[in-house]
């Protein structure tokens, strides 16, 4: 028997609620809000309460997909990044940096969001950066 409660941070948004994932024999079976967290004080929203379900959802994407001849195919990270970089370069050279926009995410960390806007401004030369939290 291997029973653990793992303290972690909710990945659903940028609030940073703390929760315990209840893990029994390698399977995440439940979510328990952390009572001593100064952020959420033992409370969660409906999304946080269901973290244990999406982590192991069969619908979750675990590898990059690339559309080839109309259908999605699993590809390696190298291939996905190579394809994306070459397309971004083509569009920038053909139509200018402002023809590209970047949508960042509340599910990413502060640091990752910083990197993305830096990439948009410094590498692609555009201020077209937006975020789902600005709805």
């Amino acid at each position, binding site marked *: 028997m291997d029973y653990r409660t793992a303290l972690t941070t909710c990945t659903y948004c940028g609030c940073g609620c703390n929760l315990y994932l209840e893990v029994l024999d390698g399977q995440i079976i439940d979510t328990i809000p952390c009572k001593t967290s100064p952020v959420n004080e*033992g*409370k969660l929203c409906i999304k946080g309460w269901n973290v244990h379900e999406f982590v192991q959802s069969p619908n979750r994407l675990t590898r990059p997909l690339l559309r080839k001849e109309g259908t999605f195919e699993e590809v390696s990270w190298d291939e996905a990044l190579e394809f994306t970089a070459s397309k971004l370069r083509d569009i920038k050279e053909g139509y200018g940096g402002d023809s590209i926009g970047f949508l960042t995410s509340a599910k990413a960390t502060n640091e990752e969001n910083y990197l993305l806007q830096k990439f948009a401004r410094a590498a692609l030369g555009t201020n077209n950066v937006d975020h789902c939290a600005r709805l």
Partner: protein
Amino acid sequence: MIKEVKKRVKELLDSGKITGFLGLRDMNGHVGPHLFCDGGDLEALVLGDRERPGDSRYPLNKQLIHLARSYPEDTFGVLVRGCDERGLKTLSTWNQLHPDKVVPVGIACPQELAEACECLRPYPDEFVCGEKVEGCPYDSVAQLDGIDLAARFDHWMREFEKCIKCYGCRDICPMCFCKECSLESNELIRTGDIPPEMPLFHLTRAVHMAGRCIDCGLCNEACPADIPLRTLYKKVADIIDEEFHYRPGYVADQKSPLNILSQPGVE
């Protein structure tokens, strides 16, 4: 206080009476549920009184059900306060836990917590530490009963309006063990709609707490909108007591009248 608890847990683990002890652990700066399996590793065991008594309580009986469902042959120890023990007794009558497979290690709650909880019996039958203090009446219920019906209705509707329908009250509840939940039944509550239908959502849950709620108050603490759910369920418990002379978990093996009524041949 904690010394007596650790001593008792160590005895239970070392003697092999229990596979593990479900308690609370202070680790990485936070208090949460933990299964202690080694009698020599109880350093981080705590009772859930961090800054004030009972401020980091968890639904340990709920986690115990998860373990018991997967390991029905094993016996587990569990940390219990008065409310948790009422939970164990009630869960046994609902066939969710086998009393022979559970060894409660009891602690009595201090006056401050008993008053904050308005707990009728703030101690389990047997406890290894703490002092037995008098139970406290449901002042919050009496206060609301003192105002007229229309104003009381307005009060509750104002409270229910704050609901963000997170289902936290149900998810934290150690007595909510059903595999199918009425609060997710489309005939009654449409799951995709926000805000919830009022007062249907809350009254559906209140009715389901009748004869089942053991007044631990974890729902109240988990509510992001601070809806005084505990007061609502205390009132429901009072009604069941008046009508059927029953309060869940105070007497072992006593089934809820609502459980008995649903059996064939009982009128």
